[in-house]
Structures are given as C-alpha cells and as structure tokens.
C-alpha cells in the first residue's frame, strides 16, 4: 500500500521533470535532496515514483533520493552527530539532546540519454 504522503510529492516531481525533459532523449535518472524534517521514506517515494510515471515519457527513470539526516546536538557534552531519527539519547548520558533538520525538497539533477 502506497502512503499518499509520498504519492503527492511524487506527482509534483513527475510534472516538474516532464517540464524539463528534452523532446529528443530520455530521462534516465532524477536526483532529489530531502531534509529529514519532511518525514519522507525513500522507498515509498520510489514506489510512488514508479506508479505516477508509468506510461508517461519519463517512465523507467530512476529516482535517486539523497535523504539528509537529523543533526543531533548535545548541550551537555557538546557532541554533534547525524541521526536517522530525532529523539535519541547521548552517549554522555544526556537523555534529550536537541534534534535539528532541514525541510528541503529539491530537484538537483536530471540525467538525460541521447541517441547519437
């Protein structure tokens, strides 16, 4: 079952990629960057992407998702580290270091294959 959350993002992305796609040539890869704050699951995004691009000129294009993790900052020991989840304890014993993440959702590159 697709989660509609990723589905609507995939729909917007597919429309955007089709606007950029050249008439001659095929889009083979689509690179996006996603901040952890968005709460998007790359696998669900890829499944939604396959579904929404099916039967369109960009069908078969691979979606590469660069998921930017949370940054955890511990105010007790000063340590900073990346984490896939926001609420984690610090190894120094502080139970609640501060999570921060971006909410970027950007199309960063297209790879086009042209017959020569």
């Amino acid at each position, binding site marked *: 079952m697709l989660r*509609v959350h990723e589905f609507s993002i995939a729909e*917007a992305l597919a429309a955007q990629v089709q606007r950029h796609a050249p008439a001659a040539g095929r889009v*083979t890869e689509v690179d996006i960057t996603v901040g952890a*704050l968005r*709460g998007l699951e790359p696998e669900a995004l890829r499944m939604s992407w396959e579904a929404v691009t099916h039967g369109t000129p960009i069908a078969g294009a691979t979606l590469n998702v660069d998921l930017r993790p949370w940054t955890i900052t511990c105010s007790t020991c000063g340590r900073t580290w990346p984490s896939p989840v926001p609420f984690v304890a610090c190894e120094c014993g502080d139970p609640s270091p501060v*999570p921060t993440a971006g*909410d970027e*959702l950007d199309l960063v590159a297209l790879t086009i294959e042209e017959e*020569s």
Partner: protein
Amino acid sequence: MAEAAQTTRIPLVERVLEANDEVAAANRAELQRRGIFSIDLIGAPGSGKTALLEATLRALEGRRHPAVLVGDLATRRDGDRLARWCDKVIQISTGQGCHLEASQVRDALAQIELGQVDLLFIENVGNLICPVGFDLGQSAKVGLFSLTEGDDKAAKHPYLVEAADLILLNKIDLMPHLSFDRRSFEADVRLLNPRVPILDVSATTGEGLDAWIAWLDR
C-alpha cells in the same frame, strides 16, 4: 556496432513544490492586502478541529468577521456543522488528496465576498504529515493535538511541531481519565520548537478558549 548513447547530467536547483509555493505566495499577498489574518489548522482525524472551530466561531460571533475553508476527503459534514455559526463557509472536497494545496485555497477564496472578512480559518484534511509541507499562504500554522492521541504524538510528528506558530492541546477536560504525561509532551515540543506557545483547551467545555481567542485577537 550498436548506436552509442550519450548521457548528460544536468544540474538543477529547484524546489519540488515550487508551483504550489508560487500560488501560496499570491494567496498570502492577497490576504495581507485585505488585512485578513489566516490560520492553517492542522490536526489528526478526531483531534477536534471542527469542534474547536465551532466553539471559536461561537466565541467570536458579533465581534469578528470570519470565513472558513474546510478540507475534507469526501463529505460535507464538517462544512454543514460550521455553517451554523458562520455564513462564509466553503467546503473543499479533496477526494483522494490527503492535504489541501494552495490552488484549492485560491479557488475557494474566489467564491467568498472577502470585503468584510478579517479572519480566515482553513481546516486542513485530518493528517499530521502531508499538510505541513504544502504552504497555503496562511499567516500562521496551528498544530492541534489532543489528549486522546497520546503524549508521544508531537514527537512522532516533528515537521508539524517545528513548523507550528501555535500548538493547541485539545480535550484537556479528559485529563483526569487518561495517563497523558503533559510534561513529557511539552518537553518533546520544546526540543523541536523552543519558543512555540502551547495552549491547553477544551472545545467541549470551553476551558482555555479565552487564551486561544486572545491569541487570535493579538
């Protein structure tokens, strides 16, 4: 020999929801020009969004001039409930859509005589994830949580907590009956959004509504 295919990587920097964001910016400019303070109310199904708006409209009656846009998947029930308290209610049926988009708000606003309106409530579709990422052009995002959802609901939805300009904790009248850890809820909120106001309310008993109305009147 087979034809060689040439691959080119084209770098871009473009927001995926740029089209929505552009419409949202136009909505925001229009609402600001008219002096309309607007709220995107985001909460889970059953958190009491419609009940809160009913109580709010009742409290504002005769004093403010609100309009309401209600997003719902399929029914008109929420809109019908609110129409008892406000003569400017537009129901937006989203069908399969799990959130409102800026273009739906633009189209709904076109159906309202906005001349008298000074306050706009947008009741988003019951969902704590999708609506957060779609800017509608609102002045403020209000995150509505309720006691019956459990005290870890904020921690599980960091995007809404981080993006909210106000957090409302509804059904506070049920506190004696539930094992809701109010301090733990607030601690999670504070880690993600240190300065957001948190107001305890009960749409049913009216408890705490004064503070919410005062926040709207600021």
